[in-house]
């Protein structure tokens, strides 16, 4: 079983994230970055599947130089090799262009399963796995809160808005998993040392036959005209419960016409 797991290097959600003033793209330099927390679940599932059979996990990331940190983390966890697609022309790419670059890179790799997280923690669109399935022309088995692989069959539990579904497909397939799957492992000391010797290939757009004018900010199919910081909420009245906290709460709700 050959698994390619797609990961994204994102600005830390706990830090003060912002936009670049000049082009409205996410500011990736002023904030510390890391492997997206939601992608760690995908790495964990990939490793679990690989360990249960005779599997091999390749970690793939598209992003600027710092994205190699996200790849290294996945290698420390247990992936065997990494592929880093990096090209200045990619800066400002939207999900459509990102899925194109990922799909072209995946086509160059040997795979049975492409594993993704449910969404990035910065853009949070959650559409790239579906787009990858569309582009690769293979089954889309996405948003799994449980994942099982038996032979060449993948099966997930998908918690939809009104129902819970069991979805099944034969490989090859694009699979995405939610944060309801088991927590990711921490890299062991041995894993950290071993990762230093693991191969990471760096590919540019030219290696993927992707024309530079199909990606990046200029090729984006949507345009941001403004970004604004939401005015911070002003802290309202805080009372301490002295036996009448519930009544005071309802008195407030009544002034706002909720009661």
């Amino acid at each position, binding site marked *: 079983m050959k698994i390619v797991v797609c990961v994204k290097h994102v600005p830390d959600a706990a830090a003060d994230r912002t936009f670049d003033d000049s082009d409205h793209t996410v500011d990736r330099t002023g904030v510390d970055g890391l492997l997206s927390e939601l992608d760690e679940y995908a790495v964990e599932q990939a490793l679990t599947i690989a360990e249960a059979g005779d599997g091999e996990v390749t970690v793939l990331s598209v992003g600027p130089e710092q994205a190699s940190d996200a790849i290294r983390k996945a290698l420390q966890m247990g992936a065997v090799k990494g592929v880093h697609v990096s090209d200045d022309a990619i800066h400002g790419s939207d999900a459509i262009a990102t899925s194109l670059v990922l799909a072209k890179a995946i086509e160059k790799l040997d795979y049975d399963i492409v594993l993704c997280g449910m969404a990035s923690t910065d853009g949070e669109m959650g559409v790239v796995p579906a787009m990858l399935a569309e*582009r690769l022309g293979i089954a889309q088995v996405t948003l799994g809160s449980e994942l099982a692989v038996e032979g060449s069959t993948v099966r997930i539990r998908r918690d*939809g808005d009104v129902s819970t*579904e069991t979805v099944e497909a034969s490989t090859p397939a694009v699979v995405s998993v939610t944060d309801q799957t088991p927590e990711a492992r921490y890299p062991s000391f041995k894993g950290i040392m071993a990762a230093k010797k693991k191969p990471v290939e760096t590919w540019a757009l030219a290696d993927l036959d992707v024309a530079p004018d199909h990606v990046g900010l200029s090729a984006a199919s949507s345009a941001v005209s403004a970004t604004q910081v*939401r005015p911070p909420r002003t802290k*309202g009245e805080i009372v301490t419960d002295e036996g009448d*906290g519930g009544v005071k709460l309802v008195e*407030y709700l009544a002034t706002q016409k909720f009661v």
Partner: protein
Amino acid sequence: MTEILVLVDHVDGAVRKPTFELLTLARRLGEPSAVFLGSGSEQAKDSLAAYGAEKVYVADDPAFGDYLVAPKAEALAQLVESASPAAVLIASSTDGKEIAGRLAIKVESGLITDAVDVVAGPDGAPQTTQSVFAGNHTVTASVTKGTPIITVKANAVSPGEATGAASVEALTVSISDAAKTARVVERRERQATGRPELTEAAIVVSGGRGTGGDFGPIEALADALGAAVGASRAVVDSGWYPHSYQVGQTGKTVSPQLYLAAGISGAIQHRAGMQTSKTIVAVNKDEEAPIFELVDFGVVGDLHKVLPQATDEVNKRKG
């Protein structure tokens, strides 16, 4: 007249509220046409007319229910190619966003997800507002390529009634074998609780770690207020309440008129799911809890005492 396609979100013909919101937004941009995929269109037709649908495109194929997402995206793409609408609006649901993503690739068009507002821009084309980075920033954007495909969050607008002709047009769609690869082998409807749906509710009462796993006081106050119940991630991870009630970055995003957080500290991941609520109220034992930075009104106290008293008071005032 400019045609705007609205994909109907329904369960066997019972149309879900976000669809009426989409029809309301579509009327700002042009003439709404509802796209009904699956069975039950007869049942849905009147309600779609009541929110201004001039046309209802109907296609039914067993593949829509038997396979995940791809067949619906294919049918919608065929309609977009033949009808050339000015925009396509889809609910930001689990399936909706993935249908939109596949559609954008198929018809080579731009995609905007999770809009919290859609208006006609200076050139008449849709202009969207999105709330990003845990609700700390708002982004104004528009699609610049192809047919704008926009997914819209629930509660972006109050559904406004308007009479539409809802003339039915049957669609002939062909679903390829490639779209029939991810089989839905089982589907279990979620049990009805009798409470409003979380993402659609005007009031949400949420419980966190401070409940200690006892959601009795949360549910009682929710019922007194006619509210939906929500939960923090800590609660869901502890197995105290089901995941479908989780509010936050990886759960549901809610934007009700009133959000009442009890025993929730207010981590950034939780704030991402509720920060755009109109009024926020919190009850927490810890006066240093970050949730108090956001609230319009807060009570420092034990939710197991404050909530039951509040429930009694609400019931008393209701007489």
